[in-house]
């Protein structure tokens, strides 16, 4: 049975489900309702099939490599290689796509009559199809085709809400950044081809010894930049906070939960598998990028009052945390400590899964709120918990999971990441040790700041009094959206409670890497009770924590409510208002909430204050009529990173322009010179 599910034919059924979903939705584009149902039905069916396929592959450890004939070009072959790592990522995409599609059935309705639903369904299905190709392709050129399908489809979904000029601008920024990334990936693949003579990943892997060390390092840098753009590492992240808010929310959830992980997937594949053995500084670079991305990501998130931009910055933070795990895995593997590399890799994989779950949950929650409020500005929310109780509850679970609060899943993967970094401190020497100390410090501060950020987010969205009249018209979302969010909330809880069982499956994936096969079977990250680290360095159990917490809660509630305080009355009154009428303007705003942290980190965030005063008498300037204060954060990347590059490219182009005079005779001369040069070079 398992063999049938994991066979190539089953994989093609998976691909064709999404393909049929895409084409059919395009054909049905005249009718909004049927296009919506058709596209999401096939996406749901495909995701379910993908779940079945990936779980069967992981359990049976049945990897498949196969080739489809009929390639028109000699260098391009449609070869697939589905190993455990691919299967794991297929599992993630299917899981998230399943609930996003269920959510989309209700969510897409508000686009009816406004935009073309068929086109959205077309791109949506092709987007997932593209990701599946990226995860399974085993040939460089074929991989790039999948990569482009994924990027272009997501570009069209970013600009889907095209009436807003901001979205089109964001889409354009995304496209430019994506192509910069793709250019670097192409460079990496071409270099591999030059020295090894093949685009096929399996051939490259077996011939990696042919690579000179210099070329290998350049390939590393090119791949790091190329895949780093997609993953959203700082300072290549600028497209992320622009594109995620622009896309429809279920697309943001997929982009943030899954698409940016394809960058991580390829980093794992290249650095830990294909290009092994690697020099130690690769791991150090990845670890440093992880430190910077996690800390700066959460700091920028704190400054945001646009809910989706806030979540987008948290994606950068979490990519940073994943890279902390991956970076230490790379370092340990180059120091030939496979057992520790294994631990770090499992931590990175687990956090990849967990982040996909809680981040898509949060994006879907944000989408429901935006759908009712018609604005992304959190300052105009407030008190929504009374109008959208279920959404609020699911968002609370997502907030707790992303803040790494036990017993939700985020805690357990951060715990594993912490532990692998601790092992680094305990074992390594001098400068490497300090690097790991720095990484632990970054992770610790990231955790604390993320908690502050989600108190701010949850508080200003759902708590206190409404800050705009729009809130009082808000209604709870339709059922399909609630099911999508509720299921993800449930998963984020279950993956926390059953973290040890999940990790024992992830161990299998870790062991499938060639470099990690030397480690003895006895090294395990989990046992039946909970997670643990070898030599009983430490252990933790989610289930026990949950049970004792629930037990304590019940006992306290019974003692307080039923025994001590039985005859007590509860009166409903007004909040203490110091004698004035309380209005929403007296509540703390989300900008105000984070202001003290912004001021403390002013060296990094460069906050700006701008006063605009409108005087009733412009001559005397004593009586201001209105006074506006705008607070902002300096964009250091634009001024210190992108602007210099832009200036350089512009000045270079100006120089090149000199040879272009518009005179036909001169162009004929150029052609003549070019001809002569090529003639001589051939002779």
């Amino acid at each position, binding site marked *: 049975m398992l063999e049938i599910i994991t066979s190539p034919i089953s994989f093609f059924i998976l691909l064709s489900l999404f393909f049929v979903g895409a084409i059919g939705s395009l054909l049905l584009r005249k009718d909004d309702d049927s296009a919506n149902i058709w596209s999401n039905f096939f996406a749901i069916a495909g995701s379910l099939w993908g779940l079945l396929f990936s779980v069967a592959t992981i359990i049976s450890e049945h990897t498949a490599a196969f080739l489809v004939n009929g390639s028109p070009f000699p260098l391009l072959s449609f070869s697939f290689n589905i190993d455990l790592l691919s299967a794991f990522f297929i599992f993630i995409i299917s899981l998230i796509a399943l609930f996003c599609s269920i959510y989309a059935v209700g969510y897409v309705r508000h686009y009816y009559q406004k935009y073309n639903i068929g086109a959205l369904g077309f791109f949506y299905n092709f987007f997932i199809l593209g990701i599946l190709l990226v995860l399974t392709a085993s040939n460089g050129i074929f991989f790039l085709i999948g990569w482009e399908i994924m990027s272009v489809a997501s570009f069209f979904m970013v600009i889907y809400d095209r009436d807003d000029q901001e979205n089109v601008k964001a889409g354009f920024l995304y496209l430019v950044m994506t192509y910069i990334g793709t250019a670097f990936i192409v460079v990496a693949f071409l270099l591999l081809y030059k020295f090894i003579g093949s685009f096929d990943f399996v051939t490259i892997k077996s011939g990696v010894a042919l690579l000179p060390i210099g070329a290998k390092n350049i390939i590393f840098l090119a791949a790091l930049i190329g895949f780093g753009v997609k993953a959203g590492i700082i300072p290549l992240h600028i497209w992320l906070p622009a594109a995620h808010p622009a896309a429809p929310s279920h697309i943001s959830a997929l982009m943030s939960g899954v698409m940016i992980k394809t960058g991580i997937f390829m980093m794992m594949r290249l650095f830990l598998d294909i290009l092994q053995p690697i020099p130690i500084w690769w791991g150090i670079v990845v670890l440093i990028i992880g430190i910077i991305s996690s800390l700066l990501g959460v700091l920028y998130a704190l400054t945001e009052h646009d809910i989706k931009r806030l979540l987008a910055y948290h994606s950068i933070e979490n990519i940073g945390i994943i890279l902390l795990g991956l970076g230490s895995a790379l370092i340990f593997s180059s120091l030939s400590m496979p057992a520790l590399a294994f631990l770090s890799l499992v931590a990175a994989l687990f956090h990849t899964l967990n982040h996909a779950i809680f981040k898509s949950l949060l994006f879907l929650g944000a989408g429901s709120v935006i759908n009712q409020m018609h604005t992304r500005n959190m300052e105009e929310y407030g008190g929504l918990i009374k109008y959208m109780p279920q959404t609020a509850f699911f968002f609370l679970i997502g907030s707790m999971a992303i803040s*790494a609060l036990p017993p939700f899943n985020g805690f357990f993967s951060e715990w594993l990441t912490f532990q692998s970094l601790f092992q680094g401190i305990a074992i390594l020497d001098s400068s490497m040790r300090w690097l790991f100390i720095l990484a632990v410090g970054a992770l610790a501060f990231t955790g*604390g700041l993320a908690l502050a950020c989600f*108190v701010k987010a949850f508080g200003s969205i759902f708590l206190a009094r409404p800050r705009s009249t729009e809130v009082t018209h808000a209604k709870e979302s339709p059922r399909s959206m609630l099911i999508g969010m509720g299921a993800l909330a449930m998963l984020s809880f279950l993956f926390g409670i059953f973290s040890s069982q999940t990790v024992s499956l992830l161990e299998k994936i870790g062991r499938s890497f060639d470099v990690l096969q030397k480690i003895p079977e006895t090294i395990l990250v989990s046992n039946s009770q909970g997670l643990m680290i070898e030599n009983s360095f430490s252990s933790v159990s989610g289930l026990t924590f949950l049970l004792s*917490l629930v037990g304590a809660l019940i006992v306290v509630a019974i003692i*307080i409510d039923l025994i001590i305080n039985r005859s007590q009355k509860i009166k409903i009154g007004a909040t203490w208002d110091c004698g004035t009428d309380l209005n929403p303007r007296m509540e703390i705003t989300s900008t105000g909430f984070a202001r003290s942290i912004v001021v403390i980190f002013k060296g990094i965030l460069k906050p700006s204050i701008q006063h605009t005063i409108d005087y009733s008498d412009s001559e005397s300037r004593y009586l201001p009529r209105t006074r506006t204060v705008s607070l902002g954060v300096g964009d250091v990347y634009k001024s210190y990173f992108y602007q210099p590059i832009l200036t350089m490219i512009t000045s270079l182009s100006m120089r090149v322009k000199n040879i272009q005079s518009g005179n036909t005779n001169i162009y004929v001369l150029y052609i003549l010179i070019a001809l002569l040069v090529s003639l001589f070079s051939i002779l």
Partner: protein
Amino acid sequence: MTIIILEIQIILTPLVSPLCAGVINKIKARLQNRKGASIFQPYRDLWKLLHKDEIISRDASWIFRIAPFIVFSITLLIGASIPLFTSFLTNTLTGDMLLIVYALAIGTFFLALGGLDIGSAFGGFGSSREMTLSALAEGGFIFSLLTIALINGTTNIFAIANADIFLHGKYLFPTLLAFGGFLVVLLAETARFPYDNPATHLELTMIHEAMILEYSGKKLALMEWASFNKLFIFLALWVNLFFPIGLAYTPGVITISMGIIIFMIKIFLGVLLIALLESSMAKFRFFRLPDLLLISFILNAIAIGLIR
């Protein structure tokens, strides 16, 4: 026997923690030439509050209502999961230092949400300040625990308390550094001087009291009790992890009672130190507090660097 020990372990934190607050207030009163209230006053306050009716703001949601129960239960759970007077108990399930740190963060999370929920300016700013301080304290907190975890080769705090760190004299200096670093974090997390003034209400700079301003009756009692528990937990971690002397190594009536007595003496010394600190220094300006927390972080980082 084990069951009795476990029961003492669970019940000890909520039972003794109000006493610590009472003793601190008493010592501070004496240092100010006042007679001061009895050291059992916090118990009477809690008892009184628990029997009162309560008023809840009409702006409050269910978050405000459940927050006191969660905040209090978390302190109960952590109080039972850390070494208090014994070291032979093993707890491989909830006794991890990171679990303790992040479980305490659950309490902070709901405390801050409770402060935001009623929509008063006091609560909001209290929450904002609390989250700022706790975010910055997290680095020092984890690092000081990590120092002793690395010395002992485990992050399980029962195992740390069980090891005799004075056998290795060479780690004395890092331990002392981390001990100092932990004190800074302790004062920040338990809302004491120089971070917060636990004695005032309606002062513009207050943090903890501002968040629980709208609570009344039994919910206020639970919040106050939880903050006593938190103080007790931090003191217990401080004295037991950095000076694991006098803990009961074997079960037995005499060793256990000796363990409890020595533990109480150690806690009393800690309480005395806090009272002396509070009597001799003023509250800091809010934006000077990050410097203090950064110092704690650096002290602990140096401590980790010195372990070898």
